[in-house]
């Protein structure tokens, strides 16, 4: 329904070509994905069942600080009663409707935040070193494995960091208004790998 041609990512001011000079780092933006924030109580069986019926994800078995891939959706644990569902572009409203239907009468909240954040994918043999410059979490593959995610800060921006491939490929979900800062920070920080 929406015309992505006219949409503008929060990273529009960042020149991604500049990252091509950086050794061991591949940096791309996963633009315009759908982002839905989901709230509900795990001890509410009806809530869990509604979610499971709607998207096939058992929230009770999604461990803290992990994410799973279900069909086209990625579901991230954000808190004991909060999750983020990332969908391919333009599917969020449909999914939002489906979920809201399923959650009728159940204490919950489904909020579209797609325009409020974006995703940066960082991979390569210097990816970890780059992120470590601003991240207090131990990213060693023994500690932070594929399927793990963590909300934390990268330098001075709050992010949701996840591991796509241990030690080599990460994704960072960043709030829109901080995205430009983070982009500049990444550019600045990666200059030593040029």
């Amino acid at each position: 329904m929406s015309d992505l041609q006219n949409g503008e990512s929060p990273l529009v001011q960042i020149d991604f070509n500049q990252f091509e000079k950086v050794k061991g780092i591949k940096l791309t933006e996963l633009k315009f994905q759908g982002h839905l924030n989901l709230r509900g109580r795990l001890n509410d069986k009806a809530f869990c069942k509604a979610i499971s019926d709607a998207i096939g994800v058992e929230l009770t078995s999604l461990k803290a600080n992990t994410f799973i891939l279900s069909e086209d959706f990625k579901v991230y644990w954000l808190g004991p009663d909060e999750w983020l569902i990332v969908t391919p572009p333009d599917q969020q409203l449909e999914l939002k409707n489906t979920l809201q239907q399923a959650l009728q009468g159940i204490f919950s909240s489904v909020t579209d935040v797609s325009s409020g954040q974006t995703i940066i994918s960082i991979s390569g043999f210097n990816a970890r070193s780059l992120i470590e410059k601003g991240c207090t979490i131990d990213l060693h593959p023994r500690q932070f494995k594929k399927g793990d995610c963590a909300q934390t800060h990268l330098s001075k921006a709050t992010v949701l960091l996840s591991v796509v491939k241990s030690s080599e490929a990460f994704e960072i979900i960043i709030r829109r208004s901080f995205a430009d800062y983070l982009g500049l920070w990444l550019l600045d920080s990666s200059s030593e790998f040029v």
Partner: protein
Amino acid sequence: MKNNRLQGEGRINRNRPLNFIFNGKSYQGFEGDTLASALLANDVHLVARSWKYHRPRGILGSGAEEPNAIVQLEKGRLTVPNARATQVELYEGLQASSVNCWPGLEFDFLSINSLFSRLMPSGFYYKTFMWPKKLWMSYEHVIRKASGLGVSPELPDPDRYEKTYAHCDVLIIGAGPAGLMAALAAGKMSARVMLVDEQSEFGGSMLHSNETINGQPAQDWVSDTCEELASMQEVKLLPRSSAFGYHDYNFVTINERLTDHLPTGQKTGGRERLWKVRAKQVVLATGALERPLVFANNDRPGVMLSSAVMQYVNRYAVAVGQEIVIFTNNDSAYETAMTLLEAGLKVIAIIDNRINPGSSMADQLRSEGVKIIDQSVVVDVKGSKRINAVQVMSLQPGGDKVTGSVQTIACDLLAMSGGWSPVIHLSSQSGAKACWDDEKACFLPGVPIQHERSAGASNGCFDLKNCLSEGMLAGNEAAQQCGFEVDASIQLPVVNEVIFNRIKPLWLVPSMFKAGRGPKQFVDMQNDVAASDIMLAAREGYHSVEHVKRYTALGFGTDQGKIGNINGMAILAQSLQQNISETGTTTFRPNYTPVTIGSIAGMNLGGELFEPVRKTAMHGWHKQEGAEFENVGQWKRPWYYPRAGESMLDAVNRECLATRNSVGIIDASTLGKIIIEGKDSGEFLNRLYTNAWKKLDINKARYGFMLGEDGMVMDDGVTIRLEENKYFMHTTTGGAAPVFSWMERWLQTEWPELEVFLTSVTDHWATAAVVGPNSRKVVSAVCEGIDFDAQAFPFMSSREGLVNGIEARINRISFSGELAYEVNVPANYGLQMWESLMAAGEQYDITPYGTESMHVLRAEKGYVIVGQDTDGSVTPVDLGMDWVVSKVKDFIGRRSLYREDCVREGRKQLVGLLTLNGSDVLPEGGQIVEDPNASIPIPMIGHVTSSYYSANLGYSIAMALVKGGLSRMGETVHIPLADGKVIAAKISSSIFYDADGEKQNV
């Protein structure tokens, strides 16, 4: 020029000669030299002047402990003040000069201070410079002139500083034999290891040792071990890296120097890197520092630490003297003597305070013609800019007095050893309380209170064999604590056993003079603290070691007492007739060695990176239109949009008039936006806001005030009821984050029974407020699916529709008193929406305006800005807004409104002010008085909070908080300005424009 370079190999690369300049003169050294070793190789001993007395000083040590050889490196932007020559690696073209001397090092004018040194004991300035009182600032001016060592750069630093976090299982600090062994052990267990050493090469004292390991020279074992470590995947090796702070939770800060050793033209990339390491376990293998001996004129060039002498000979192949005397109270100096002999230098005598200090080394030395003079001490030296003789006396039995005649021994170098002090700095910083060991005459690391252990010389272990085994044990244990299993294949290297005799402490060398009456016996050379100063402090009643430190400046210098502190404390203990553990140490604190501000500040500086710049979806557009920006919290908001030739006032006047007369548009995306959902949402809002919420109709909006529990205004904004159980709250821009977390806090901690979920959508929505009589036409041209009829879509209500086919929410709310609509779309389409509105508004000359015009427009209507018209002492009642405060329900801050002070008469209240001369614009922050001619202190009755020239009204308007203001309407008050002018103004209502609110309701 004399060349002191020896034949032996050392660790310098003779194929790489390097030219450098010191005090304007050219010299040559080799790759592998430090500035200190290169200077000594060129026979430069006099390198500095002391801080207070400007005495000639030479190089005393060979590393971090050096107190004297402080130089200014390079010039201009790249200059480095206070570099220690002993730690500066030589590079081609290096330039250095002595600090703190004028006109020069050889003849230094202020060395006359030395003549007055008697007038300048510790703390003399507390006792004088008080008369006449007025002159103190002039005295101080002179004192300041003489202060400081190096000079600060005068230009900004062009270098970059990297910074990173890191994690490991075992962090090993110090790569001497103990540290290397620990790393090897832990590394073999496949623990994640970091090994750091502040020197350019690993090996520590092995780099200058004569010992063998596994039958080979120790240096070979070092390189083999380093190679093995480098091949381990989980081992990270960091040379040129000083661990300078050991904080709670095994957080260690490390400063790595990346380019300081490179010639100026070849430095690329960052200059330094700050490592912020969290280690599961830490092994401290930081070695030990040799202590000097405290005797008369012990600060003269040519008096050096014995271990430094050995290091210069073995590591740098430099003969620091030709005819050498050694003065010691322990066996380690005998090794130096052996080294010197091997290098073909002449050791004339060893002066030892012990009785018959026999050892195999002593016998050997005797057989080679070295005189060993036992039970004797050096009492003085001859020579000023370089010593030429030492004076020796015998000790009386008991050892605390000298006796007999003075024997003068000609020599050009005195190597001294007063024993060893383990480097317990980091251990002490970690919280372990150092304990005194009488036998070894040193402080040892205390019982660990963090996950750390010490090994090797830093643990008081002074022989190689045990250093290696302690290192291995420490590595094993540390990795075991992290869950790894000991690697059985690891073997302890084989070394010769050396037996050491007991040290005989010698804190203050006895002399023929009563203490304080002879020449100065220096304890802290950098700060010119002599033994007599410490005794004076004790005599005057400064008994705590901390008082003595502060009174004398003992340990205050750039070496932080590495050289002098133990001797100083021992001398204090003697003066107070205590033992050393009663006296104790001063507190060890970071930094172990000084670290640049640049390094700690890090790379994230400059216009955009010092602090995040938050930008709205329309930011690029504003920039293109030439907007001036205002910082609001972390956001950049357009402040005003000057056109060519316009002043700020011109622009603001134009924007305000256009908005009131036709239509304006402002980016309102930065306001905080929170979705509140769940069946108790209304109840929750009731508790948060001063007014009532449950009865608000769906799609209707209401203005609310949030108070702190102290009753003072905290935030305000409009909230819309979207559904039965769902509200959409707006907060102020600056309040967004704190208010959101404030709300979460109440929900989670106080009212978990409420069924409410909060979700922040600040970033999701981009918002344009279209304001002015023509706004309806503009908005209705762009928004589909909404009936914009005044009745169908009344003031304070909200509708959903489409903008360019994208879902949009339009709120008819107003912060200007005009007909106005806030158009919200998902921010990815924010720019597109903005451009559509601009296009639709073109025919009405739609005018973008910034925060300044927004402030003017709202002030014309008397709307407050929280934080500008309020400070932390203003209630809604003070603002004349009691209508927004419910009398029936409880809410946060309610009880506070009934406290004695909140209900008293005469509180400050918000009013309007009209200057008698309408073109006078009051300064915001102007103080209001009744009688400007009263004598000082003039009672103040309030202050101006907001003030503008209103182009719409044609005169200036202001808002103010005034004592009892609401009952003073029409009174004239006065605002005295800083330049002496006084402006008179009348108190008025704070609503200046459209008092009945008709314009927003059309």
